[in-house]
């Protein structure tokens, strides 16, 4: 197991292997598994992601039980068809994929948590748009997921990927950083550029709190995945252009952990502070759960 991003990047460079390959070999060694077993499990995860992205834009879309979220991936798809997007079709497609996935999650559909269910749309948001942009084949898409997972493991083991512990920066922030690093690899960038992309993506989302209205993974979680995906693409492009974060990736991860520990409990997935605590947020909670919380 790699303790730091620096070690992961150094291993990739000294062994002259992409990070995806290092991750696959580690997984095989750790679980005495064959390459086929490891590969096919990831392949299954990819299928689940693809199915959620697709399901979110079928018909009128999917809606959660509460009605707080749903149908907006379809709105984005229709908007794109008019061809007048401000940030470009790829960016809005990434947003559509991210929102579709989290709408399926909020509607209690089947998703692949990457790294969490609340942040489940960020990775597919990026992956399926660069599949189109870069004509990725299935093998490259599976490798994207191994690379994202390798970086995600370092973040999870050194900081946190739970909103209750570290706020949304630990969930969507981590997902965005993982997606940025993996996008760089499949786009032909170096392991160092992946690390820079991760550092920039995570730096941009530091401090993001977890403030779900009524404690539901709906508002603002669904749309935070849109920014997670967009931010990942921007960070990946900056890294591929040669921009650097100046503060090393491992130090950004440590900063994220410290910020998370410093957040008050009301802003760590308790549904009390932030947007959950706005008059409208409180009203929504009352409408959904009523005054008294019955616990039978």
């Amino acid at each position: 197991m790699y303790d730091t991003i620096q070690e992961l990047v150094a291993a990739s460079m000294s062994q002259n292997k992409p990070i995806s390959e290092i991750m696959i070999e580690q997984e095989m060694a750790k679980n005495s598994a064959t390459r086929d077993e490891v590969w096919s499990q990831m392949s299954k995860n990819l299928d689940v992601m693809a199915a959620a992205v697709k399901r979110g834009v079928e018909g009128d879309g999917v809606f959660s039980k509460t009605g707080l979220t749903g149908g907006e991936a379809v709105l984005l798809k229709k908007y794109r068809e008019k061809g007048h997007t401000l940030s470009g079709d790829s960016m809005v497609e990434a947003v559509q994929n991210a929102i579709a996935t989290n709408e399926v999650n909020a509607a209690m559909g089947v998703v692949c948590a990457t790294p969490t269910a609340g942040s489940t749309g960020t990775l597919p948001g990026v992956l399926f748009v660069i599949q189109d942009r870069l004509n990725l084949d299935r093998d490259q898409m599976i490798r994207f997921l191994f690379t994202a997972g390798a970086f995600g493991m370092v973040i999870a083991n050194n900081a946190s990927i739970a909103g209750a512990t570290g706020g949304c920066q630990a969930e969507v922030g981590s997902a965005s950083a993982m997606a940025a690093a993996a996008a760089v690899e499949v786009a032909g960038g170096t392991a160092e550029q992946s690390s820079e992309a991760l550092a920039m993506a995570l730096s941009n989302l530091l401090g993001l709190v977890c403030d779900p209205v009524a404690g539901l993974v709906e508002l603002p979680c669904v749309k935070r995945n849109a920014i997670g995906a967009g931010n990942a693409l921007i960070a990946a492009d900056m890294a591929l252009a040669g921009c650097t974060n100046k503060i090393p990736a491992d130090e950004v991860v440590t900063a994220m952990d410290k910020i998370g520990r410093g957040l008050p409990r009301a802003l760590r997935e308790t549904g009390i502070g932030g947007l959950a605590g706005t008059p409208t947020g409180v009203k929504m909670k009352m409408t959904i759960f009523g005054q008294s919380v019955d616990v039978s």
Partner: protein
Amino acid sequence: MSGNYKSVFDIIGPIMIGPSSSHTAGAVAIGRAANRIFGGIPEDITIHYYESFAQTHKGHGTDYAIISGILGFEPDDKRVPDALDIAHEQGIKIKFIEEAGDSPIDHPNTAVCELRKGDREIIVSGCSIGGGTIEIRDIKMDGFHIKPKGPLPILLVQSENGGNSENLSDKLQKINTINHHAQYDAPGKGIMYEYDLENRLKQKDLSQLASKDTKMVYL
């Protein structure tokens, strides 16, 4: 570094029914651990929630998730959202309690599960640390009070005559890494050995470790 996340599939995965990996998939996993420790399905369940779990269990579907696990369902089982109804149909009594105090095991996503059937009761304290990964930090079963470090996998072996600890440790060391080892006594119940392991055990390894005079629980 905590080293809790040991597999790429802890990060890319699990495949699950939404909406929350920590409060839904993780809750299923805590429930499944309780199911294994109990060794089946109880007649009576009380769940104590703390901190984020206490505040948001309803919104996240934690109730049906944890009961799904206690019923033995996987996180992606289609029956997960209906688990409360399924349990009620089986006549299982269920109570959820939102505790106001701090988590007794020092984590914001804590559930303490009491499972009862007849005279037997077990209490399992678990926390969901993110992405569906859990820790089990406290177990009370059959007179033993077990306090694992938290991260899974954990192997518990109860030996009524107290024997074979060295033998078992040797066998485990050949196929795995033991991160932590402890043993507990309970009058008339023999000795409980706890092994916190680095890697997951395969089914064939588990059957090789099993013997007639021991009871094993693998989490």
